[in-house]
């Protein structure tokens, strides 16, 4: 059976792939992850997650064009598949549903207020 759940890290990576669009390859995604979350991550860890997401069918990838800046080597560009988009949406909807049930926040999704 294929694993279809999304971990927290996987979800963020998947979203970042979506955000970066054409420029989504392992190094860029790792950089973006660091700048968005402030947490450091190695390229290897990102790459391994991308590989896993691709195996699950949430991502597809192909080799891009050669560029001079990296010694003429090509990049592997990742794009979200339809399945990937659906999983992301489901994950969001599920969380929203949970938020709605939380009485203190119901109706006003406002972080700072109640602490």
């Amino acid at each position, binding site marked *: 059976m294929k694993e279809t759940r999304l971990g927290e890290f996987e979800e963020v990576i998947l979203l970042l792939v979506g955000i970066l669009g054409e420029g989504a*390859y*392992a*190094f860029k995604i*790792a950089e973006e992850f660091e700048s968005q979350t402030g947490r450091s991550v*190695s*390229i*290897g*860890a990102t*790459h*391994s997650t991308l*590989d*896993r997401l691709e195996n699950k069918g949430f991502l597809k990838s192909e*080799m891009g064009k050669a560029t001079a*800046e*990296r*010694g003429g*080597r*090509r*990049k*592997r560009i990742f794009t979200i598949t339809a399945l990937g988009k659906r999983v992301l949406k489901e994950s969001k909807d599920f969380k929203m549903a949970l938020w709605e049930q939380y009485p203190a926040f119901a109706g006003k999704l406002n972080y700072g207020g109640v602490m």
Partner: protein
Amino acid sequence: MKQHKTIPPALAQRFLLRFLRVDLAEEVLGDLDEKFYINVKTKSLFKAKINYWYQVFHYLRPFAIRKSESMYSTSCAMYKSYFKIGWRNLLKNKTYSLINIGGLSIGLACCIAIGLYIWDEFSYDRFHTRYRDIYRVVDQQVMGGDIFNIAATPGPLGSALTSDFPEVQQFCRVSRMRSAGILQHGESAVEPQELLVVDNTFFRVFDFKLIQGNGEKALREPNDVVITQSMAAKFFGPDWQSAGIIGKQIQFSDDRVLTLVAIAEDPPTNSHIQFDVLLSCRYDELNSPYYNWNSNNYHTYVLLDPNADAQALNSKLYKHLSKYISNTTDITLSLQALSDIYLYSDFDFQTDWSKTSDIVYVQIFLAVGLIVLLIAISNFVNLSTARATKRAKEVGVRKVIGALHKQLVSQFLSESLTLTSLSVCLALFLLQLLLPLLNSIASKSLHIPFQEPYFLFAIIGFTVTVSLMAGIYPAFHLSNFQPAKVLKGLFASRSGQLFRQTLVVGQFTFSVILIIGTIVIYKQLTFLQNKNLGFDKSRLLYVALKNDLPSKALLMKTDLQNQASIAGVSLASNNLIDVVRSTGAVEWEGKVSDDKILLTHMNVDYDFLSTTGMTLLTGRNISPSISSDTVSAYLVNETAAKRMGWNPTEALGKKLAMWGYKGEVIGVVKDFHFRPMTATIEPFLFRYWPRESCSGLFVRAKANQVQQVISAVEKIYKKYDAKSTPYYQFVDEGLQNQYRREQNTARIVSCFSVIAIVVSCLGLFGLATYTSEQRVKEIGIRKVLGASVSSIVRLLSQDFAKLVIIAILIASPIAWWSMNYWLQDFAYKINLEWWMFVLSGVAAIGIALLTVSLQTVKAAVINPAKNLGSE
């Protein structure tokens, strides 16, 4: 090894390609490249390379690793065979193996111990998060033609720098109260050991931690006080933490009431700033007479902006003081990095009261540690090549069967790796056992940081390096044998002999250098301890008077004088150990107008000369019956008289003024040492000013009555001050303590020279065993033909003796040069004499021959029939 081109580390790339899935190579290499070049731009080349390695290691993940190939199984079997043969060889030659592993592990243990020591020395003050941005402002003054480095700076300097230079973010002043008083709260009274006066920025500039209280607010008010946890435990008992002690009032000396505002953690041992009580600098600003531009009383630390250019600030600071003080052309300021303070401080007049060490001693230990390691490695190489004959047949057979040169090299290298790993384990075990001893010798608290990953990496790297150093020559030597020759038995047993001899010479050269070094250091230390100081240091006690005792000094003196066990008592303003109170404000008859001297001075009474046993060359002592002596009488030392242009007789009656107080020279005292032997004797002056209270008493005990004197001093001290513990010191002990670092070094160097000799001898013993085995037939035939035992022993020993003599010849000039270099630090020193070299040489030859004779005698007394019978 060094590579300055900005390309990713090639080794890391090769490593990556070895394990990475082939289809991933292109994209991964590209990504890592991109990361690398961004790092080069934003950080540094070094950091970028480190990061590259980090990234490569992070690709060691299941998805990225290539599936292994089947060739694994054969090479595995091959390694098994190597290991098996290696192990059998180890067991077959037990003596060799023991010498090899034993020697190597002793050497490694020394090296690791010294590594730990040096690591500890370099770890000082690096626990502050911003230690790179913290500097101490120090100054250099020219006085009387001499340059003096001074660690202390004027009180107002810190805030002036902060307002003058935008790159100075914060400053913190630290001053030490030398004659600290007593802290009292209710019944409990504690005497602080390290009482510092600091600014309220102390906890922001430095990373000293608070357990209770607020670091932002602490020490803002003049009477705030912060104490350390151990001080709190002494004060309020072990459960002070729940006692709610913050805000309590503490009486300090007689005139100040302090408010306890915070409890700090004890400062880490690897901090040059040590304290147990902190007072507020604000009090000094308001009340201290020494808080002005003309007194240097504070260490001024500045915290710079991380982007600031410290070099540029340093040059801007150089003449900056002239903005605030007139006529200061000869005082210049500079910055000293925080991480340099512990190892690179050499300041005059005891202005640096922080805990410091000296880089020279770190260098000495490093050199000695490496020497011992080299000697141990040479042993290993020697014994392995000597043993080569035994393994020649094995090499021949392996080659005939089809082993490649490369494979043989890797076989022998893996053997040396196994042996080294074994030795490293043994060394760590040895070290763990001996560390308490080492700690007590070096007065440190070192431990082996097994749980630290960097330590494990370092040990692995160290093991690999040592095994390569030890194994590379034997490996190539052995694998170069020609199978046809060795299998026929046409093997030159003398192969590699020159190389082995060179190594033995090298080993003994180092050993002899260490022996000479030990002799010279000990000789110099005994010289320092026995040198006539110009006064009698034996049975002389110095009692320091604290709090309000100086005002009662005369009463105490009378009480002490009445004791039968005491031969003499004198008031004095200082102890005689390292006297640094000095002034340049001196005028004398016939002075050239711009002549400046630095005059060290002391306030004493008329009993001083007789109590300390100093000699009056000319003139008279101060007299209690001549009333003008309390104002206008000065005693000077010979050097002062000479410096002022008089001989001892001329000096009498000459006019002299200190700080504007006019008087005349009434006597000249024979020169005496008042500073450590690293300094020459300088001009000195005694004055008799009863109006200035004296903070010390010298007490001379009668022979064999020292114990009685101690109890008398304690009793009388208690009589006048019941609260504080009497502080007294025997002058000779105090003088000894000045050379504690030298004594530590002497002890450590002598330990290591013994180890070096032992390890060298182990190697020699191994070689002697080998040669006597080689020449067993020759010895048999010589005996049959009538040679005596002694002639055979001589024959076998002379080869070794020759080598040791060559070593002595090489070692002597090197030792002479390096010991001269060490002695330069001392103003008073021994001369290097020929007997030191001869003694070391004789010792080395003696020890070497003794070691060799253990084997040679055995070989010589064996019945020749036994040896020759076998053929």
